[in-house]
């Protein structure tokens, strides 16, 4: 009998194409027959602001002294046509999130935090609540395709109107709110039966395209005595054209939401595969404003994946007048907090990965209509956390601006930036670090 030498065996090897997540999704799809719905924004790795760096001052340029020498952060929105533009103390606003997708406590906390810092918060699909108006010193009223809860009294109570054409998580798609969150109050506000899966339209019911948008904007101005700034919000996909057309239609402010921007609930395939990254959307939008001679006259708000003061400063340097945060604000309130890890585990996930916002079982009491869960969120304490966070974003942006010698954050410019990767250089239109090479062609 011959001794066979032991044959080395190959290790189990997963396919890059059919990786475990893909396999799990195929099994989930074949079991249920319905696409995966979730909340949040794109989770895949995307070129982002981390791929940009600032060129701080040294000998060729001089910095400002931190904490002592002034570095302004105020911004005025809606100076083009509105009789009453909005004046914000910081260039960071709270993005539209509905009562319905969020609990009343969460909406109140957003209002409290934003008001403390002198900035605005925004309603969402489903209308304005009294609590929200009461706790928000500056409130932007969203005007959406579904017009759930839309009424002219609230329109007149708002400080600005945001016509939502689309959002970064799903440009071209309508909203969803699943039955678990259509509580009696949400149902009544939206004129829907309780507990059904709400489908929201993807197009406005009474206009499509810029020629008709122009007429819609005229109507909204007539109803609000030409006082309120009118924003037009689009999901980033063709930002040059969309910005130019929103401007031609008469908008005061353009909001561009990149694909990292969150949503309460939509198809995962939409979130991950439609739209372009925030980084790639800013320069084309700014170019459109410049081509029309309206940069800084029609203000540009950028949103989608803003996390820290560096992101804020970079977005402003690329030409935005302000940024808007949604997901980060929810995290500041307490979303995905490891303190609730046991509850996340019970839901089959873990703190930091929880994205089933549509199911209404949020352990942190934020993306829910369950009274017991919602009661977990103390709106005063959560509002304080948001104010703290906004304060840090502002201080960080000022720190960078001062280091670049700017007495106002709006004086940051693309020339203050370089890129770490070829992708980021092309998308942001700034040179690769250490070179004068700006890859890519026309900036749209």
């Amino acid at each position: 009998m011959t001794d066979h030498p032991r044959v080395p065996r190959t290790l189990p090897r997963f396919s890059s194409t059919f990786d475990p997540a893909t396999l799990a999704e195929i099994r989930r799809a074949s079991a249920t027959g319905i696409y995966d719905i979730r909340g949040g924004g794109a989770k895949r790795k995307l070129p982002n602001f981390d791929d940009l760096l600032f060129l701080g001052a040294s000998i060729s340029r001089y910095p400002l002294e931190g904490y002592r020498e002034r570095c302004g952060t105020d911004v005025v929105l809606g100076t083009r046509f509105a009789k009453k533009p909005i004046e914000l103390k910081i260039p960071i606003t709270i993005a539209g999130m509905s009562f319905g997708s969020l609990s009343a406590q969460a909406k109140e906390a957003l209002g409290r935090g934003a008001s403390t810092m002198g900035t605005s918060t925004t309603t969402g699909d489903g209308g304005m609540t009294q609590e929200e108006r009461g706790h928000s010193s500056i409130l932007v009223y969203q005007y959406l395709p579904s017009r759930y809860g839309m009424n002219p009294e609230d329109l007149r109570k708002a400080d600005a109107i945001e016509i939502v054409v689309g959002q970064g998580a799903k440009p071209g798609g309508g909203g969803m709110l699943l039955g678990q969150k259509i509580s009696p109050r949400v149902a009544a506000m939206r004129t829907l039966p309780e507990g059904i899966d709400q489908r929201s339209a993807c197009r406005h019911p009474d206009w499509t395209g810029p020629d008709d948008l122009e007429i819609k904007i005229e109507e909204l101005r007539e109803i609000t005595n030409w006082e309120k700034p009118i924003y037009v919000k689009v999901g980033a996909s063709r930002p040059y054209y969309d910005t130019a057309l929103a401007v031609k239609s008469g908008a005061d402010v353009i909001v561009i939401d990149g694909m990292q921007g969150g949503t309460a609930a939509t198809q995962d395939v939409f979130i991950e595969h439609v739209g372009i990254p925030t980084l790639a959307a800013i320069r084309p939008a700014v170019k459109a404003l410049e081509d029309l001679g309206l940069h800084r006259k029609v203000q540009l708000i950028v949103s989608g994946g803003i996390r820290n003061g560096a992101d804020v400063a970079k977005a402003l340097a690329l030409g935005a007048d302000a940024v808007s945060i949604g997901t980060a604000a929810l995290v500041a309130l307490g979303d995905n907090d490891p303190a609730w890890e046991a509850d996340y585990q019970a839901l089959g996930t873990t703190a930091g990965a929880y994205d089933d916002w549509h199911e209404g079982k949020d352990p942190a009491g934020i993306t829910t209509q369950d009274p017991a869960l919602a009661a977990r969120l103390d709106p005063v304490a959560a509002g304080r956390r948001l104010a703290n966070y906004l304060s840090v974003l502002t201080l960080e942006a000022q720190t960078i601006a001062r280091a670049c010698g700017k007495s106002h954050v709006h004086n940051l410019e693309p020339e203050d930036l370089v890129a770490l990767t070829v992708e980021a250089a092309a998308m942001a239109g700034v040179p690769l670090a250490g070179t004068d090479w700006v890859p890519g062609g026309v900036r749209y």
Partner: protein
Amino acid sequence: MCGIVGLFLKNPALEPDLGRHLAAMLEMMTDRGPDSAGFAVYGQPGADGVGKITLRVAPGFDHAALQAALADKLGAAVEITPRGTHLVVEVPEDVIEAATAAIGTLAPGASVVSAGRRMEVYKEVGLPADVARAFGLAGMAGSHGIGHTRMATESAVTTAGAHPFSTGLDQCLVHNGSLSNHNQLRRRLKREGQSFETENDSEVAAGYLTSRLAKGDNLGEALTAALVDLDGFFTFVVGTETGFGVLRDPIACKPAVMAETDDWVAFGSEFRALAALPGIETARLFEPEPATVYFWERHQ
């Protein structure tokens, strides 16, 4: 994204006023399209067997020289009448194609805007009222006409991007909306030998209809086929030598209003374009149905 107007006269007694009405209709649609404007007018045919080519030329263009060179090259009588930045070139009908080709060599800077027996097309960048005035639209006579005011969406604000688009003899098209499969359709039509002047989606629609008509469709059949082959949003108004047609996509997002009397049929993106027409008070007003072909032939 635009404003569209169209007027088709049933009563020949109104023909001297066609341009005046069309100019007023066009101007009412300024808000919908302030970037550029254009129009097609179907006038009386010239003398028997005479065709017309409309050209757009640069300021200071020597049209007398072109007239002489073209007559020489074609061995035929050529008349050229300047109108604003455009020239109307009259040549024997049977040499229209040869003339178009010859113009390409003799005057490479000139662009052929349209060709046919009766149709003249004019278009320019600027406010509709200014464009109408520059070409003297109000003084033009004819049996039917189509006009367009443009708010450019994804293609450039240029005269070439202005409507109407003409891709066949006496054929023109104006479009409000935005097609979503025009790039692949353009490639298909190019393979079939059609050429395009612009990246504009509306030109593809015009080229598509021309291609169907060339294959033997009548306009009604071509428009019906368009409902299958063109994706996206559109309200089209189409002119031919003898009539005009209207087609909206199956969702009919873009606005359309029509009015009809015993004397005329009119189309407007909005009612106010029609408000000044004679007899509008008693006209039959209706909104064209989605995915439905409407077509009026010129009475004899």
